[in-house]
């Protein structure tokens, strides 16, 4: 920011944006969905936002806030019974709020691109990646050469309409056939221009990395040559001679490598199932940008991915859209991520825009109560552990007493759960060697504290949780509960163990039986362990509902009537029914909206202070760890990478991997005005 040149380029950008006017202007948008009964549901009400060319604008909101619906209305892709009932959507000054699908067909691809949310379901599994990129190009006539397309566009628009086409030099790509010759000529030209030694090597290295067939345009080749010291005329002569258009395969590979896929030509011949989630998302980005849209709508493009992958992909997308001058409408539920990536933030709540403005300003001085709530709850922005309600009310002396009382208890045994050299191997189908999901992991959970296991998907953290819960037999290694080896447990011991060690699982939609009423769900553990009579159990369920701050009236309801956060609270109540000592939370808050997540974390924290619970907290989200954990175990590829107290891990991470994880926390570096 302090750099003069960036300020200059920012001022230039601003002037350009001002001169061009808004690219997308949404005013008082209203979208309704019609239900089965014919009653309209207002999904979006009087929403307004503006996107300028080359700008990143983020729409932030929780699930059901109307953020995706607004974006889909812009694209003309409202699902099912959704339709625009009011307001205006102007794309480059053209009103499209009630445009026909045919008109949208022309706009989508060339003017607007989409990077959808779920990389797993948005690629056709029976088509090669390359064919799917090709489809995007063909659908927009990008497969034919420039002159032909100009003619086509003119024909489509009618003779008298003034068709603005992108410049020829911007649309002619380098082909792989011409690349070697161009490289030779470029080297000669450099020598002729008197570039030698170090500068020469640097320039050639630059050409080699930049000149990707199917991605590098004539204009950019010329520009590169000029920058390297070749005279203008010579540079343009070379560019015009050798950059004469690329084959379709070159173009596809070029697009994929632009999106950050290495070895793109080979990748293009692969099928989606051969790609990881991050690679699929990159392929979708390539498709979204294939026809060089002015506006790219990215609908939670990375929320299904690991944080480090998310960071890499967004960094790359940022670089790519900056170099192409594409504006991005970025939909996310993560305020930190939005503030980090976008210049302008739009906060939506219950279908309405509640606040919008420059991102830092909104983040540092939130004014609408909802935004304030969001900022306060955002885990990535929080800098310390949640203090429990109990401790908040106590003065220092009482705290001290509390600690002493704890210490007395510690005599029993300091570590409630100890894991030693835990290893789990799985047999992979069609492969001989065993896959080590967990490799020699040892740690212990101190009584009354929280130990978090952090890792990305596939790090083996959930496998550890399942072994601690005795749901999975370790290949080798032992789990001790209260100093007793759990592998020696007989049926009766195991039942006792289950009473003391309880799980809360990730998926709030899956972990409650949909056929069971809330009462029956919470009562189930009491029934299994044959505790109390019907009346006692009813009272206990009521007590538990109070404990998790749910009204007693939900007893007769069914899980499908409750939101994710409410179900998770019911799952916690069920886990608490037997008065356990240890709760294993396997990604217990990962599926929840920020505010709800914050609420559940506070609940867990308060319960810990009240009941002296110990938590084993499995999560992929380091930001959450800071709020809840005392100690952190970082796992990667089944191995324990780092084990330290939370403060140590955050302030002085020892391993590079931990540092990478920390760097990837969205918005982690942003400073808040709050204290």
């Amino acid at each position: 920011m302090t750099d003069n040149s960036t300020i200059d380029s920012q001022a230039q950008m601003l002037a350009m944006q001002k001169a061009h006017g808004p690219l997308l202007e949404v005013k008082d948008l209203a979208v309704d969905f019609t239900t089965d009964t014919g009653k309209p549901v207002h999904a979006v009400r009087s929403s307004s936002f503006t996107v300028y060319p080359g700008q990143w604008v983020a729409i932030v909101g929780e699930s059901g806030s109307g953020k995706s619906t607004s974006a889909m209305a812009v694209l003309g892709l409202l699902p099912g019974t959704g339709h625009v009932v009011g307001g205006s959507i102007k794309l480059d000054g053209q009103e499209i709020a009630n445009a026909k699908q045919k008109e949208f067909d022309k706009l989508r691809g060339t003017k607007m691109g989409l990077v959808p949310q779920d990389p797993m379901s948005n690629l056709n599994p029976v088509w090669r990646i390359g064919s799917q990129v090709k489809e995007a190009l063909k659908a927009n006539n990008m497969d034919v050469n420039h002159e032909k397309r100009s003619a086509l566009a003119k024909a489509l628009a009618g003779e008298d309409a003034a068709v603005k086409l992108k410049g020829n030099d911007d649309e002619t790509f380098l082909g792989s056939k011409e690349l070697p010759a161009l490289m030779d000529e470029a080297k000669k030209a450099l020598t002729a221009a008197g570039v030698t030694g170090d500068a020469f090597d640097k320039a050639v290295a630059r050409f080699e990395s930049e000149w990707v067939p199917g991605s590098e345009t004539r204009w950019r080749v010329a520009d590169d040559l000029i920058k390297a010291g070749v005279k203008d005329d010579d540079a343009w002569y070379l560019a015009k001679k050798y950059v004469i258009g690329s084959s379709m395969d070159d173009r596809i590979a070029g697009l994929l490598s632009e999106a950050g896929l290495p070895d793109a030509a080979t990748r293009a011949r692969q099928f989606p199932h051969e790609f990881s989630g991050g690679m699929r998302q990159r392929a979708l980005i390539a498709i979204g940008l294939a026809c060089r849209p002015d506006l790219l709508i990215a609908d939670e493009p990375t929320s299904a991915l690991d944080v480090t992958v998310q960071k890499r992909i967004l960094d790359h997308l940022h670089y790519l859209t900056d170099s192409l001058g594409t504006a991005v409408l970025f939909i996310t539920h993560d305020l930190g991520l939005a503030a980090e990536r976008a210049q302008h933030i739009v906060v939506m709540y219950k279908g309405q825009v509640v606040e919008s403005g420059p991102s830092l300003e909104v983040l540092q001085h939130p004014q609408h109560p909802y935004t304030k709530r969001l900022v306060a709850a955002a885990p990535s922005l929080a800098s310390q552990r949640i203090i429990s309600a109990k401790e908040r009310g106590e003065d220092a002396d009482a705290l001290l007493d509390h600690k002493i009382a704890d210490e007395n208890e510690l005599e029993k045994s300091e570590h409630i759960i100890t894991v030693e050299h835990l290893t789990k191997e799985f047999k992979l189908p069609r492969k001989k060697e065993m896959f080590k999901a967990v490799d020699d992991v040892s740690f212990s959970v101190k009584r009354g504290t929280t130990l978090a296991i952090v890792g990305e998907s596939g790090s083996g953290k959930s496998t550890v949780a399942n072994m601690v819960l005795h749901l999975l037999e370790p290949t080798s290694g032992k789990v001790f509960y209260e100093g007793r080896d759990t592998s020696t447990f007989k049926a009766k011991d195991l039942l006792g163990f289950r009473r003391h060690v309880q799980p809360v699982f990730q998926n709030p939609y899956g972990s409650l039986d949909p056929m069971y009423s809330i009462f029956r769900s919470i009562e189930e553990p009491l029934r299994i362990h044959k505790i109390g009579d019907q009346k006692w159990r009813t009272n206990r369920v009521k007590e538990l509902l109070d404990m998790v701050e749910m009204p007693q009236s939900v007893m007769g309801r069914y899980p499908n009537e409750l939101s994710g956060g409410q179900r998770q609270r019911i799952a916690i109540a069920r886990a608490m029914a037997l008065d356990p000592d240890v709760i294993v939370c396997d990604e217990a808050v990962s599926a929840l909206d920020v505010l709800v997540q914050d609420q559940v974390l506070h609940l867990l924290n308060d319960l810990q202070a009240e009941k002296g619970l110990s938590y084993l907290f499995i999560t992929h989200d380091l930001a959450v760890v800071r709020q809840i954990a005392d100690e952190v175990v970082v796992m990667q590829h089944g191995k324990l990478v780092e084990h330290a107290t939370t403060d140590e891990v955050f302030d002085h991470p020892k391993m590079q991997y931990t540092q990478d994880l920390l760097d990837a926390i969205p918005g982690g570096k942003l400073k808040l005005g709050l204290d």
Partner: protein
Amino acid sequence: MTNENLDNQLDNSGEPTPEYFMETLPGQDRYVAPLDETPLQDVDSVDESAPAASMWADAWRTLRRNPLFIISGIVILFIIIVAIAPGLFTKQDPNSCDLANSLSPASNGHPFGYDMQGCDVYTRVVYGTRTSLSVGVLSTLLVVFVGTLIGAVAGFFGGWVDAVLSRITDIFFALPMLLGAIVVLQMFKTSKSIWKVVLVLALFGWVGVCRIARSAVLEAKNLEFNTASTALGSTPTRNLFRHILPNSLAPIIVIGTTSLASYIVAEATLSFLGVGLPTTTVSWGGDISSAQVNLQTDPLVLFYPSAALAITVLAFIMMGDAVKDALDPKSRTA
């Protein structure tokens, strides 16, 4: 942030805060929605006003609104009443026939006329209802019971148990039901009874239910609430009966209701072919069979039992569709 600070900022909302002044583009000024237009609700509050809805209650609500269900329900209710109390609809004995009345046309008190044996067609149609319905219902119950049991065992235990049971299912699946039933019933030609028909239909019919039950159990088995329940201390067998089976019931009920009609048809076909029910039992299939000789001269004698059969089958198929819509909303056609 202190309260004082907050108030200060709310006062000059609309104007950019000085230390973060940046040039904003037109249309991108700081905007804060008025609070009265966007009231803040409690985080994740429970809607206590909505009626409680279990899966069954939901299904019932959907069913009640479905005209298909209402029409078929009324027809089936009527059929059941006729089957239980045929005496309410006719005072005559279906087996007291007088050859003197052979093929007489309709007359007062005998709206459908007489068949060749001189039996009252109306009375025989009324009494035939019970036969058709009981064969249909009993076969369905048996098929659902056997099929669910075998399917659940195969799906739940998996491994070699599943392999063996699935191969047996495949063998039975390859046998055409009607052909198999004819072959087997041919052996009991001299000692026909309603039970034999039911058993034979079940013998060749359980595979369909078994396959559905197996896949439903396989699906329900892998749902997270089973793991949750195990972690609470539940045993696998308890899980099967308390969680997995209840969650697999919907598709089984659907296939049960839809196949009921096909068993009624199968019984009629077998009786028509003379290998089904004993001739002493009044049944639509048997009556259709004996009426076919006079089809050209007296088509009405054949028409009435056929119409009764068609209406019953149609009603059950409609009911099956409605139940399918309610229990399996994904299969609903828009």
